[in-house]
């Protein structure tokens, strides 16, 4: 008998297979975070005994955690996959853009430019991403096959119907489909799946010591070369882990002793703060921050 993890897995595999079948040149957006690592694992299962029939794409902001980059390179080598990397810093130079003069200089908006550039350059017609509907309220509204127009924009008010499991992957030349196989997974589902499948994650997700300073809302920002520390910041070494792995400039850590997957699950069962709420400074810009970014072509 299948339990809910089997059912979620079957749904994700179904979506991945539809993507491989309906598109000429799909690519998997890989960030080195747990969701995209799970996606790669699911893709391995979906096409076994063959190898994954598409490449990976990483939009490298230049603000990544070294652990995530190292993890990415080992994974790509192990699976013998092709990895495309688009460097945000290069696109910024090309477009005469410079980092914002902020305490936590986010490259979120620049990331969209690089993503759309990469889609155009390599002619990707489908981009598979690890986004989940439970992460954020605009994402809760998105289809599994989420259409992007010729400008790469999401038009939430004119999403087409998506009925039963039938996925309509027909698009015009130059349009793009974003595909979300983990749409119906929650954070804790992902962790339970990681536990069951023995999926290896970057060490960032487990308890370790780091010099950090505390933000007004209590979250912990770790010291790194991109964040501007001032005299009010009190630096102290704390035992932390990351709930999400994004840019070093906008991802906060949480205080934690959880050093195994089971301990992380136990911690999450009792957590009273949402995943992005606990960690993402970039979401706090405005109430519709994610929706606005997505409309412009963001992940």
């Amino acid at each position, binding site marked *: 008998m299948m339990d809910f993890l089997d059912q979620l897995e079957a749904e994700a595999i179904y979506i991945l*297979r539809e993507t491989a079948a309906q598109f000429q040149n799909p690519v998997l957006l890989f960030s080195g975070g747990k969701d995209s690592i799970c996606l790669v694992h699911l893709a391995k299962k979906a096409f076994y005994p063959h190898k994954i029939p598409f490449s990976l794409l990483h939009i490298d902001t230049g603000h990544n955690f070294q652990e995530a980059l190292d993890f990415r390179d080992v994974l790509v080598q192990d699976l013998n996959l092709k990895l495309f990397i688009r460097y945000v810093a290069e696109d910024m130079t090309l477009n005469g853009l410079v980092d914002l003069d902020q305490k936590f200089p986010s490259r979120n908006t620049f990331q969209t430019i690089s993503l759309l550039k990469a889609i155009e350059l390599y002619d990707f017609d489908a981009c598979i991403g690890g986004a989940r509907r439970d992460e954020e*309220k605009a994402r809760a509204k998105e289809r599994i096959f989420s259409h992007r127009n010729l400008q790469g924009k999401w038009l939430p008010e004119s999403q087409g119907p998506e009925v039963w499991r039938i996925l309509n992957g027909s698009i015009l030349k130059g349009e793009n489909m974003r595909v979300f196989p983990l749409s119906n997974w929650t954070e804790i589902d992902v962790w339970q799946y990681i536990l069951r499948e023995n999926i290896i994650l970057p060490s960032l997700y487990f308890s370790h010591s780091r010099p950090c300073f505390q933000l007004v809302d209590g979250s912990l920002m770790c010291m790194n070369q991109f964040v501007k520390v001032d005299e009010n910041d009190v630096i102290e070494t704390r035992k932390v882990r990351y709930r999400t792995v994004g840019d070093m400039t906008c991802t906060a850590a949480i205080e934690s002793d959880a050093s195994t997957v089971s301990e992380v699950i136990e911690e999450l069962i009792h957590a009273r703060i949402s995943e992005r709420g606990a960690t993402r400074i970039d979401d706090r810009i405005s109430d519709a921050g994610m929706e606005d970014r997505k409309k412009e072509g963001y992940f």
Partner: protein
Amino acid sequence: MDMENKKLIRLFTAGNVDDGKSTLIGRLLFDSGAISTDILLGLSELKNSRTLHENFDLSYLTDGLRAEREQGITIDVAYKYFSTDTHKYIISDTPGHLEYTRNMFTGASLCDIAIILIDVKTGITEQTKRHSKIAALLQVSKVIVAVNKMDLVHYNQEVFDKISGEYLTFAAEIGLVDVSLIPLSALNGEQVTFVTGKMPWYHGGTLFEQISNFSPIEKVIESTNFRFQVQHVMQSKDSDFYLGEVVAGSIAVGQKVLVGAMGISATVEEISSNFNAIELAFAGMPIALRLKEKINVTRGSIFYNKAFLPNFSNKISANLCWMSKNNGLIDQEYLLQLGSFKVIACIKKINALHKVNEIELNEIVDVEIQTKEIIAFDNYLFSKELGSFILIDLSNNATLAAGTIQ
């Protein structure tokens, strides 16, 4: 946490505009502890005009788009999640406005349970009937009718009984089988997750209890009613692997299967799933399947057992829900997608009381469809996967309609 055999259950809420759907879901999530503290704080900061008298606007949890919050309405379906020890629930909060019926259908199509809200002050409306008909069309296993805003009628039993009687008569007419009605107040939670004794005359339990007590009917798994549809072909030198999901029944290595509308016989040589070669696969399992014989198999091909054949025809009788502003036209060519199978098709006849030649947005009609070639399909009652389809606009790729095969 006990994860053994914990199952996935999908439910949707529907009803008229302002019947309190989003508030009800907010209440379910809130009382089941699925809302985090930071999200709640966000709610107290941001309120819309619909519910200024509340401490928290719970509808804000599901109205995720800027336009929805500005207009105070639900435009598109929002998906939310909560878990109990025995089930993981996916809730689709679907829009009430007639013009967004396509989004309501999107949220409802895979669901096991329908929660249809009725405002006790307004009673049964056209939208109540439309949403109930869609639930019947989709063969939703259980329908729970939440008669909401009971606080506004002082929890009066007579008002509830009247609506209840009318609804049950209507439900019988449209063929809904498992229907129950609950009087409740989504706003203050009464009879949603707890009972404070305001309606001692009602003994049906809370909405939460009714949801929790529901278990989906397990499909009988036999080798005879086997179905498999090919999603993708992985070609290799020796023989191809066919990727897809077992849609019904079971299949074992060595068994004979028939393939496609031509019914070509072949033998299963290898089944692979979960990184392993396996002997036996059941409904719901994603598998890679290899045949002994080299025959022509393409994406969309259906495999089945000779003991239980699908239908083969170029004519389909279906119930069609039209979802586009461009009217459905007789003899116009569309692309019909049935699971992973695509074929050119035309509507040949619209069965209505008076003769019509077009289907308008949000209409649900019986139609006769003709496909360009003979195809294999099932009745929707037997298989949601192989008994349902969409029609696609050949010029702009838009999904125009959803159909269930009769």
